[in-house]
């Protein structure tokens, strides 16, 4: 039986990078980059990517009616939100003067701040948090399979996710503050880092996702 994955195309972001990385894993037969509800609902798995500002992302998600589609697929399909695609799943974001998000996972998206310092050394830290940082796996999860504890993934973001319920925390990272690098809840996984830009560890995570049945 052939497998399929839909990458939700709402005009924001690195869709081609995501699609190319999924393809490169060799773990999926069909990849659809689409905002056609029927195609997304028919796919075995769904990816919500995203880069840029949350207000624009949420604006396009709502304009294209993707909120309804996302609300439906998160009920049962293996689903991953990446970067702003993770942030969009939360309750709300501080970005753009406060933006309501999809509210699928409880928690807020917060700004690192322009004067971020390392509390241990008092050294100034740069924002955006850009580059390779370690992700501490907080739980055993099928998506961490074959990935070393504290492996480095590629991040680029100025806002971070702070979940209300710490039982959702799948991976954590520090940049001045500790934040959620990954969340997991039932068939939903979300990553602040970019697996498609995290070389072999990122490809491993996508391969794991493409084999995942959606059970934590």
């Amino acid at each position, binding site marked *: 039986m052939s497998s399929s994955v839909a990458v939700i195309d709402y005009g924001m972001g690195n869709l081609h990078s995501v699609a190319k990385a999924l393809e490169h894993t060799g773990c999926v037969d069909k990849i659809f980059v689409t905002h056609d509800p029927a195609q997304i609902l028919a796919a075995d798995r769904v990816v919500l990517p995203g880069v840029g500002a949350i207000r624009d992302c949420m604006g396009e998600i709502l304009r294209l009616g993707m909120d309804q589609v996302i609300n439906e697929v998160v009920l049962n399909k293996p689903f991953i939100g990446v970067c702003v695609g993770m942030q969009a799943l939360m309750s709300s974001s501080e970005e753009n003067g406060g933006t309501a998000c999809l509210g699928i996972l409880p928690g807020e998206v917060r700004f690192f701040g322009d004067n971020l310092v390392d509390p241990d050394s008092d050294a100034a830290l740069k924002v955006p948090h850009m580059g390779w940082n370690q992700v501490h796996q907080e739980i055993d999860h099928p998506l961490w399979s074959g990935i070393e504890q504290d492996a480095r993934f590629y991040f680029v973001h100025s806002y971070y996710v702070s979940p209300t319920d710490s039982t959702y925390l799948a991976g954590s*990272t520090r940049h001045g503050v500790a934040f959620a690098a990954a969340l997991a809840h039932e068939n939903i996984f979300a990553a602040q880092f970019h697996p498609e830009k995290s*070389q*072999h560890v990122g490809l491993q995570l996508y391969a794991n996702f493409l084999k995942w049945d959606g059970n934590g």
Partner: protein
Amino acid sequence: MALAKRIIPCLDVRDGRVVKGVQFVDIRDAGDPVEIARRYDAEGADEITFLDITASSDDRETMVHVVEQVASQVFIPLTVGGGIRKVEDIRRMLNAGADKVGINTAAVFNPEFVKEAAEKFGSQCIVVAIDAKKVSAEGEKNRWEIFTHGGRKPTGLDAIEWAKKMVDYGAGEILLTSMDRDGTKIGFDLELTRAISDAVHVPVIASGGVGNLDHLVDGVTRGHAEAVLAASIFHFGEYTIQEAKQRMADAGIEVRL
């Protein structure tokens, strides 16, 4: 646990081939960009930057194909600079698989372009490239000015003020090249690097002048750069990226090994 300092090999690409000019004049052929990018990826490069030094817009299509080919095989961040003047140029490069674009001359002539680009595509993909040259005399307080056209044309813009302005306009990162040092192999202009790094809250990539691995270490420890960029020391096989990272790790710098 902390963010790693990055090592970024830079590939100057002309007509689909990687070349490296010494102070922008003597150009030597160094090979196929896809092959070289794959090698750097395998050696552990944290990102790869392509600088398109093609003269005509027809040949820009060649660069788009290079990016497409690299992006389908190399899964680390890719930046493309050179000839980015319009929103459409950015869109093409991002669609081809680039993660960031470097804006240089166009920012100087039209700063609003940086604002427009950051609003449209997000600051995370807008790198403003700054070419600076020391203009203060011996004994005077250090002052650097922005130059365009490969270091030939002065603009009257103060480098530190310019960097701050570009960050205000939405630059997510600054690629800082010392035109005094570029191609000299005597090391980064550390005073310039530190002055800019300390003046802005976004990451600064140090560039221009790397001749050995200690220069890379200095760029981070003394120049306060978040990332270091080099070309010829890697192209001609003098050092591997892995050796560079090991040297940085030995100096106590956090790197991705």
